[in-house]
C-alpha cells in the first residue's frame, strides 16, 4: 500500500503493509534516530511528532499517517544539537541510547509549555525512560534548555 507522508518537510511516497507501524516504516526509509527500546509501548524512545504532537511511533499504524506531517530528530538538528550539548555538559549522556526520543519530547515541551515548574517538566517527560544515566543530570540540562534553572 502506498502512503504519502511529509517527513521533516519533505514529501515522500512510501510503500507499507497494512500492519506496519510508523516506527518501522521510518527506520526503513532511513530515519535511524527512531528506535524501539521496550516493545511494550512505554519507553518513549520511538517518539516522533505526528502533526506536531509527540507520539509513540511504535503504536501508530503507518497507514494512519497518510497525508500527514511527521517530524523526526533528523528534522530538528539545530535544537537537538543544542540539547545534546547541554546534556553532555551535565554528564547526562552515559550511553545516549534514549536521547533521540527524549530530545523530541523536550522540544515538544518547549513548544507547549512556558516557564514550566519542575513538577510540570517531570510530568511531561515521565514517558521517557532512561536506564543508565539517571534523571537528575538530565533534569539539570532540561531546566537550562527551558530557561528555568535556579
Amino acid at each position, binding site marked *: 500500500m502506498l502512503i504519502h507522508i511529509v517527513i521533516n518537510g519533505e514529501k515522500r511516497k512510501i510503500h507499507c503493509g*497494512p*500492519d506496519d507501524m510508523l516506527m518501522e516504516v521510518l527506520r526503513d526509509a532511513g530515519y535511524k534516530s527512531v528506535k524501539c527500546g521496550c516493545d511494550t509501548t*512505554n519507553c518513549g524512545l520511538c517518539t516522533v511528532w505526528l502533526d506536531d*504532537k*509527540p507520539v509513540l511511533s511504535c*503504536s501508530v*499504524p503507518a*497507514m*494512519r499517517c497518510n497525508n500527514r506531517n511527521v517530524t523526526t530528530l533528523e528534522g530538528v538538528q539545530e535544537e537537538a544539537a543544542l540539547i545534546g550539548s547541554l546534556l553532555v555538559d551535565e554528564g547526562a549522556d552515559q550511553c545516549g541510547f534514549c536521547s533521540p526520543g527524549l530530545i523530541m519530547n523536550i522540544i515538544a515541551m518547549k513548544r507547549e509549555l512556558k516557564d514550566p515548574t519542575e513538577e510540570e517538566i517531570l510530568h511531561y517527560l515521565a514517558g*521517557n525512560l532512561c536506564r543508565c544515566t539517571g534523571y537528575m543530570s538530565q533534569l539539570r540540562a532540561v531546566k537550562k534548555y527551558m530557561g528555568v534553572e535556579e
Partner: protein
Amino acid sequence: MFTAKDYAMPQSVEEAYEILTARKTNYIVAGCAWLRMGSRRINTAVDLSEVGLDFINDTGDAIEMGAMTSYRSVETSSLLQENFSGILSRAVASIIGIQFRNVVTVGGSVYSRFGFSDFLTPLMVLDTSVHMYKDGVLPLEEFMKMPYTKDILVKVSVKKAPVIASYQMFRNAEADFPIVNLALSKTDGRFKVAVGARPGRAVLAPETAGYLTRALEDFRNQKDPKALDENAAQAGKILGDEVGFGSNMRAAAWYREKIAKVLLKRAIREVEGC
C-alpha cells in the same frame, strides 16, 4: 504484534460498521497501544481516524467525548478540568507518558473495558452513557457487564450534575499500571463508589455508597471529624465485603483490599472537604 491483511479508513460510522461486520476477523484499530502487544490476526483493520470522532463537546446538559479522542485531549481539556471536579482529566494524567496519551483513545479503552483502566473507574461514579452504533445508548454500568459484541463505540457522554468527586489510585511507580483505584462522587448528598484494577473490571459498590449517604448526613449535622474517620473505617469494612479483589503478579487480593480502604478514606476526606 497483531497482523492485518488490509487496512480501511472509512469516512462514516455507517461505512465503518459495514466493513467491520463484513468478516468475522475484521477489527477496529484505535490507539493500538494494547493491540500491538498481542498477536491478534486481523483481516481488515478498520481505522476510525477519518470519521470525525475526535471531539470533546458541551451539549448543554452533558459533555461528550468522541471515540477517537485521545487521553491527552481528555487531560488538557478545560471542559473536563472544570467539570466533575476534574477527575477525568486527573485520572488519565498518570498513564505512561504524554506520547502514549497522544495515541490512546477514549473509545479504545472504554470499548475494551480493561481491568487496569484509570479512566473507567471515575466514569462509573458519574452519570455516564455509552453510545454504540448498533446497540444504541447504554448506561456505562450496564455496558461494563456486557460481553464484547461487534459494534462501534461512537461516543461517551457524561451528564452534568452538581457533583463533587474524587479519584484515588495507587501505583508502585509513577506512570505504571495502577495496583488498585477508586472513585467517589456525591450528587445532592448521594454517594457513588467504584473500584477498579481489582485487577478485574471496575465495579460499583452500592452498599458502601448507601452507607456513606446515610452516615455522612449524620456526620454533617454534628461536624465531628472523628466521626468521619469512624464512618470511613466502617465504609471500608463494607467495601471489603462487597467488592471482590483478586491476585496477580502486581499485588495480592488482601493487599489490594487494604489499599482500597485507604483510598476510600482519602476520597471521603476530599469530597467532604476536610
